[in-house]
C-alpha cells in the first residue's frame, strides 16, 4: 500500500499547485492607461538624432515635437511648434515664426535658439538618419535663429511644401532642450548622445519615464503640453515577441492593442466581440529586383518577360491579403502615385519577349531572399512562374545581413526585398529606385538610366501640378523599363480593444501620435 501513498502525495501536491492559486484577475486595464503589445527590441537609441528603428521613431513621435507636421493625408504641411512660415520666391528659404509659451518637459521655454541647436546637432552627430537633413540643408549655418521666436532655414534647392515637411516634420529634426543636453554632456560626448539615447529632452505630449530594453517603455502625460493635457495618463509599450502570446493577452484584456500579429490572426480577430482591427496601406513596397549587370537582365525584353510571367494574384494569396496590390514605385495614398497595373500573368507574351531578346532557350539565375515567412513561399512561386518561360531559378535563403552585403556589392542576380519611405514624398522613392547617382537601389541593380535627370528635376518643382506629372512620368518609365517587379504595398494592421478610440495605423509611422487617443 506504500505505492498508493506516493500517488496520494503527488495528487495532493498537484491539487495544491493548481487550486491553491486564486484565479488570476485581469482584463480591463485602467481607463487612462494604454498598454500596447508589440516588438520593442528593435529600438537602439531614442535620441532623435539617431532614432531610425520603428519603435524608437514612434516613441520620439510621442515625446518630441517638430516645427511642422504632415496633415493626416500627407498632402500638406501643418503647423506644430512653428505657428506659421513664409517662403522666399525661389522656394529655398523658409522663415518660421514659433508659437509662444511652449515649454519643454523640463519647464524651459522652446525658443528659436533651441531649434537652431537641435538641427545643428544633427549635423554635428552625423548619425544614421542625418541624411534626411544633410541631403537638403547644406551646412549647419543654414539654420539660423532670428531673435527669440523666428528661425530661418535655407535649403540647398527649391523646396515644395511637402518636401520641407519631409525634413522638418521628421523626428530626426525634433527639437531638444539645449539646457538639458548641456547638463548631461560629457567631454567624450559633448552633445549628450549617450544620455539622450535613453532619456528625454522633449516638449511632446508624453514624457519618457523609463525604458527597460527588451522589456517595456513607460510614457506619462505631459500636463503642460501646448495643445492641452493628453487624454491618457500613461502609455506602456510591452515587448511581446510571440504573436500568439500577444493575441491571448489582447483577448484577455491585459493589453489594449496588439501591434505585431500575423496576417492570419488579424483576419481571425476581425468581427470578434470587443476587438477592432484597423489597417492602412504603408509607404513601403515589396519588390523583386534584377541586376542589370547580369547579362540576361541587361536586356529590357528579358526584364519585362519576368514581369509578364509572374502570377500576381497567387502572390497576393501567399501574403494572406496583408498587402495592397500595386506595381508602381510610389505607394498608393502618397502624393504623385500612378495607379497603373499593366502586368498580369501572360506566359505567351513573356515567351515572345524572351525570344525577341534571343533567350528562347532560357538561362539560369539565382534568387536571394531572407527566410522570413512568407518570403520563401513567394520565392518558390516565382521560381515556378519563371520556369514556364525557361528561366531556371535557384532560390538561396540568406540572413538579412548577408543578403544586404551581397546586394550592396552588386553581386546578386535577383533579390526579393522591401523598401520603406524615409519621408512621405515621392522624391524618396524616385531617388532610391531611379537615380543611379544616389547609390541606392538603381545603383545596386546597375540600372543607370537617363530617367535620373527627371528625378533631380522633380524634387525642386514648386508647381504642385507639374511636380505630380513629372513623378507620374518617372513611375511610367520605371514600370516599362526598370529592373524591378513591384508586387504590392504592405498593409499595416493593429488590433484594438473596442473601447480604445482614436488610435489609427499610419502609412508612415506605426500610428499617428497618441495625443488624442482615449478609452471609453
Amino acid at each position, binding site marked *: 500500500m506504500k*505505492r498508493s501513498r506516493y500517488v496520494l502525495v503527488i495528487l495532493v501536491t498537484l491539487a495544491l499547485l493548481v487550486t491553491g492559486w486564486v484565479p488570476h484577475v485581469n482584463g480591463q*486595464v485602467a481607463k487612462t492607461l494604454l498598454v500596447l503589445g508589440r516588438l520593442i527590441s528593435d529600438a*537602439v537609441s531614442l535620441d532623435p538624432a539617431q532614432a531610425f528603428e520603428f519603435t524608437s521613431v514612434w516613441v520620439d513621435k510621442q515625446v518630441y515635437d517638430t516645427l511642422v507636421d504632415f496633415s493626416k493625408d500627407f498632402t500638406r504641411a501643418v503647423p506644430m511648434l512653428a505657428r506659421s512660415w513664409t517662403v522666399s520666391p525661389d522656394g529655398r528659404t523658409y522663415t518660421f515664426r514659433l508659437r509662444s509659451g511652449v515649454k519643454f518637459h523640463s519647464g524651459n521655454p522652446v525658443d528659436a535658439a533651441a531649434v537652431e541647436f537641435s538641427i545643428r546637432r544633427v549635423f554635428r552627430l552625423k*548619425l544614421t538618419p542625418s541624411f534626411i537633413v544633410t541631403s537638403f540643408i547644406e551646412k549647419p549655418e543654414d539654420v539660423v535663429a532670428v531673435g527669440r521666436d523666428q528661425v530661418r532655414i535655407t535649403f540647398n534647392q527649391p523646396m515644395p511644401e511637402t518636401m520641407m515637411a519631409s525634413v522638418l516634420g521628421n523626428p530626426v529634426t525634433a527639437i531638444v532642450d539645449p539646457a538639458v543636453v548641456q547638463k548631461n554632456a560629457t567631454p567624450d560626448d559633448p552633445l549628450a548622445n549617450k544620455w539622450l539615447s535613453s532619456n528625454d529632452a522633449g516638449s511632446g505630449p508624453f514624457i519618457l519615464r523609463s525604458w527597460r530594453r527588451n522589456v517595456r517603455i513607460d510614457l506619462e502625460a505631459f500636463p503642460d503640453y501646448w495643445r492641452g493635457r493628453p487624454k491618457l495618463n500613461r502609455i506602456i509599450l510591452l515587448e511581446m*515577441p*510571440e504573436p500568439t502570446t500577444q493575441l491571448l493577452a489582447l483577448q484577455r484584456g491585459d493589453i489594449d492593442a496588439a501591434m505585431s500579429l500575423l496576417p492570419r490572426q488579424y483576419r481571425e480577430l476581425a468581427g470578434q466581440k470587443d476587438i477592432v482591427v484597423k489597417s492602412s496601406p504603408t509607404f513601403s513596397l515589396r519588390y523583386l529586383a534584377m541586376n542589370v549587370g547580369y547579362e540576361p537582365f541587361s536586356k529590357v525584353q528579358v526584364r519585362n518577360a519576368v514581369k509578364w510571367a509572374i502570377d500576381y494574384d497567387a502572390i497576393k494569396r501567399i501574403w494572406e491579403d496583408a498587402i495592397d496590390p500595386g506595381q508602381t514605385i510610389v505607394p498608393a495614398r502618397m502624393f504623385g502615385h500612378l495607379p497603373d497595373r499593366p502586368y498580369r500573368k501572360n506566359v505567351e507574351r513573356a515567351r515572345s519577349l524572351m525570344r525577341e531578346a534571343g533567350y528562347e532557350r532560357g538561362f539560369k539565375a539565382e534568387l536571394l531572399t531572407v527566410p522570413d515567412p512568407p518570403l520563401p513561399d513567394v520565392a518558390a512561386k516565382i521560381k515556378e512562374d519563371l520556369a514556364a518561360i525557361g528561366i531556371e531559378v535557384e532560390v538561396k535563403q540568406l*540572413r*538579412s545581413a548577408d543578403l544586404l*552585403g551581397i546586394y550592396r556589392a552588386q553581386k546578386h542576380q535577383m533579390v526579393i526585398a522591401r523598401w520603406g519611405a524615409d519621408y512621405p514624398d515621392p522624391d524618396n522613392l524616385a531617388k532610391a529606385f531611379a537615380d543611379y547617382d544616389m547609390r541606392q537601389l538603381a545603383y545596386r541593380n546597375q540600372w543607370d538610366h537617363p530617367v535620373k535627370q527627371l528625378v533631380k528635376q522633380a524634387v525642386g518643382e514648386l508647381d504642385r501640378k507639374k511636380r505630380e506629372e513629372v513623378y507620374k512620368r518617372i513611375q511610367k518609365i520605371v514600370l516599362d523599363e526598370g529592373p524591378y517587379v513591384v508586387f504590392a504595398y504592405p498593409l499595416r494592421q493593429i488590433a484594438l480593444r473596442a473601447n480604445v478610440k482614436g488610435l489609427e495605423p499610419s502609412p508612415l509611422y506605426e500610428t499617428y501620435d497618441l495625443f488624442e487617443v482615449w478609452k471609453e
Partner: protein
Amino acid sequence: MGAYVARRLLLAAVAIFGVLVITFFLSHVVPGDPVAAILGPQAPEDVIEALRHRWGLDRPIPEQFLLYLGRLARGDFGQSLATHRPVLQDLKEFFPATVELATASILVGVAAGLTVGILSAVSRGSWLDHLVRFVSLIGLSMPVFWLGLIALLIFYYGLGWLPGPGQIDVYLLRPPWVTGLITVDALIAGDFEVFRNALRHLVLPSIVLGSHAMVGIARITRASMLEVLGQEYIKTARAKGLPERIVILRHALKNALLPIITVIGIYYGSLLEGAVLTETVFAWPGLGRYATSAILSQDFAAIMGVTILIALIFSLANLTVDLAYAFLNPKIRYE
C-alpha cells in the same frame, strides 16, 4: 581536496580561453557585415563606412583579437553593436531573469523528476511505470514552444488561473534593482504583492521549461534506481527487515544519486544559457533572446560576452558536479 579544486579551476580557465579563441575567429570569418545588419537596408554608404572604421572592423582579424584580449584583461567586454551599450551592462540586465527562470525550472524538474523516477522504479512494470514512461516519451518529443503556447492557452486564456506573459503584471512597479532577481528584490523591498505576483508569473514558464529536465531526470533516476535495487546489499537490507521507505530512500537512492547529480548539473547549466523559445513565448527578458539577436546581427562583442558567460557557467556547473561527486563518493577524493 584543495589541490583537486585548484586543478579543476585551472582546467576551467584553459577551457574558457579555448572557447574564446574559437568563438572570436568563427564569428569573424562567417560572411556578412554586422554594420549593414544593424543599420538596415537604407543607410547611406558613407555612414556604414564611418561606423565600420569607428568599431575597428576594417582592421585585420588577428589585430582585432589582440585588441579585444587587451580590453578584456581590463574588464572591458566591449560595446554591443546593436544596443550601443557596454556588453557587461547588457548581461547584468538580462542574466538575472534567466537565473530566476532556470532556478525555478530546475527545482520543478528535480522535485518532479526524482519523485516520478523513484515511483516508476519501485513499481517497475506496473501501470504507473508504463504511464510514466509513456508521458516522458511524449514530454521529450514535445517542442517546448508548443507546450508553452498550450499552457498559456489553457491556464491563462481559458481558465484564467495563472497570469500570462512577463515577469510581473504591467501595472505593478518593479522593486528597486538590487540583485536583479525580481522575487528576491521584492523581498528585500518588503513588497509582498510584487513577490506573490512574480512567483505566480514564474509558475507556467518554469513548468514548461522544467518539463524537459523533469523527464530527463526521471528517466535517469529510474534507470539508476533499477540498477541499485538489484544489488545484493538491498536484498540484505530488506532481509534485515528494514521498512521499505528506509531501504528506498536511504540505501538505494543515495547510491543511485551519482549519475542523477551529473544530469541535474548539466540541465541546470543548459537552462542558464537562456531558453530562447520559452523566453519568446512568455515575453521573458532573459539571456537567450539577447544571445539570439546578437548572433543574428553579428554583434561580435555581445556574442563574445555571452559565450564567456556561458563557458563560465558550464565550467562552474561541471566543477560543482565534480565536487559533489567527491563529497558523495570518497573514492574519487583519494584518487
